[in-house]
């Protein structure tokens, strides 16, 4: 009897030690704050809950930055971290937040669109909890998020997600995916409230262009592209042709399927006057047949298994020994966003969008992403937003 008690005490101690050690790491990750240094172009900062009251006090509430131009013009809303495990989007958007100034029109930027997902992780897939981007002043640390919101914020999942308002049956997991819950509703599950708040921004602020920035696997055909519905198709096509010709990186247009509901590139266009665009850049880290999901793979995109598959013609993007570095992916996003602005301005000159101090592909590749981030310790504390 005494032996059994000793075994139970020892087992409990070992399991408790494992749980506490892992639990502290996960707790720290969920509560890690990313300092965003508001650049000279930011004129106003609001929160998503200003557009949907029921988000107030929840982990899904997040900052909305406004960069208003000296002259009136069009309005573009840019969202990143819709899927928080596709970090090139956030890195590209931060370049705009910390550096860009707007001459004409308004930029509305939501860097951590799925705030809950950015505080979630996927230990079963061996995701790293953090990654760091080298800068001139040290390195900037980011938390690595997950595709879906945390169960701590929205639980339980239904057996099947019934999309609102179309009632299309989607995977249960998509109830926490902010690229399936558009256009949302104010009293729905938390992620539907997030997309509803974004729809309210689009409607109330009269947004003309909505850009949702993502990343996609190299083995997935919808990568290195702009996904656009019918109303955005012309501008998307002109943008891809221009960046291919002038900036020498591959890009194409994918049509937004009208029968697949809940996606930003479909519902924003159908439920508002705005033109939606969803940008995809390759992210080898998300492919299934890779080696360990390390920070190195996330940042340089080099993987021997993908290289082998590339030689067999199984990938949808060009891939060689140089992998697919983060600088290239981020540069593609900044260039495509800037070109979308230019093409929109050409088509609607009365709604011009003109931005300065935002680098294009070649500059980002040459200087590196970290070059564009400012040291929070050396910046005015009033300009720092912990997100």
């Amino acid at each position: 009897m005494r032996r059994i008690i000793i075994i139970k005490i020892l087992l409990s101690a070992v399991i408790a030690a494992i749980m506490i050690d892992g639990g502290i790491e996960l707790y720290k990750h969920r509560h890690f704050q990313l300092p965003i240094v508001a650049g000279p172009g930011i004129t106003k900062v609001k929160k998503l809950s200003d557009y949907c009251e029921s988000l107030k006090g929840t982990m899904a509430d997040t900052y909305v930055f406004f960069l208003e131009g000296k002259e009136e013009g069009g309005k573009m809303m840019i969202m990143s971290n819709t899927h928080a495990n596709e970090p090139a989007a956030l890195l590209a958007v931060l370049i705009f937040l910390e550096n860009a100034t707007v001459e004409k029109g308004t930029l509305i930027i939501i860097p951590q669109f799925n705030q809950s997902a950015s505080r979630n992780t996927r230990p079963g897939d061996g995701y790293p909890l953090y990654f760091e981007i080298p800068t001139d002043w040290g390195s900037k640390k980011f938390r690595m998020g997950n595709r879906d919101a945390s169960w701590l914020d929205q639980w339980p999942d239904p057996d099947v997600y019934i999309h609102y308002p179309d009632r299309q049956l989607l995977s249960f997991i998509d109830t926490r995916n902010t690229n399936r819950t558009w256009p949302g509703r104010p009293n729905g599950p938390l992620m539907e409230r997030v997309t509803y708040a974004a729809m309210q921004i689009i409607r109330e602020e009269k947004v003309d262009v909505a850009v949702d920035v993502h990343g996609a696997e190299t083995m997935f055909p919808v990568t290195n592209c702009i996904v656009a519905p019918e109303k955005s198709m012309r501008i998307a096509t002109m943008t891809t042709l221009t960046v291919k010709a002038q900036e020498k990186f591959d890009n194409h247009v994918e049509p937004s399927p009208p029968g697949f509901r809940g996606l930003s590139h479909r519902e924003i266009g159908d439920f508002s006057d705005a033109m939606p665009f969803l940008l995809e850049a390759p992210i080898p880290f998300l492919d299934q047949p890779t080696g360990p999901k390390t920070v190195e793979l996330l940042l340089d995109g080099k993987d021997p298994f993908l290289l082998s598959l590339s030689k067999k013609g199984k990938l949808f993007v060009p891939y060689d020994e140089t992998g697919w570095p983060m600088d290239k992916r981020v540069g593609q996003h900044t260039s495509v966003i800037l070109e979308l602005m230019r093409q929109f301005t050409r088509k609607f000159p009365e709604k011009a969008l003109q931005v300065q101090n935002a680098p294009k592909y070649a500059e980002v590749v040459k200087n590196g992403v970290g070059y564009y981030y400012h040291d929070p310790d050396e910046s005015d504390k009033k300009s720092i937003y912990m997100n």
Partner: protein
Amino acid sequence: MPLIMILYYVISMYLIVLLLWNFFKEKKSVNDMVLYLLVLIPLILRILRVK
């Protein structure tokens, strides 16, 4: 917190009590003891709102 979420936390707590009860009751199988404790981990992390 929505009512359904509160109910799921109550279910989790019930399962924790059940597992602890079985763990304390177990007199022979060390394998079963380990199993009860391992199954406890995600439930405890959930009610502590860690993961």
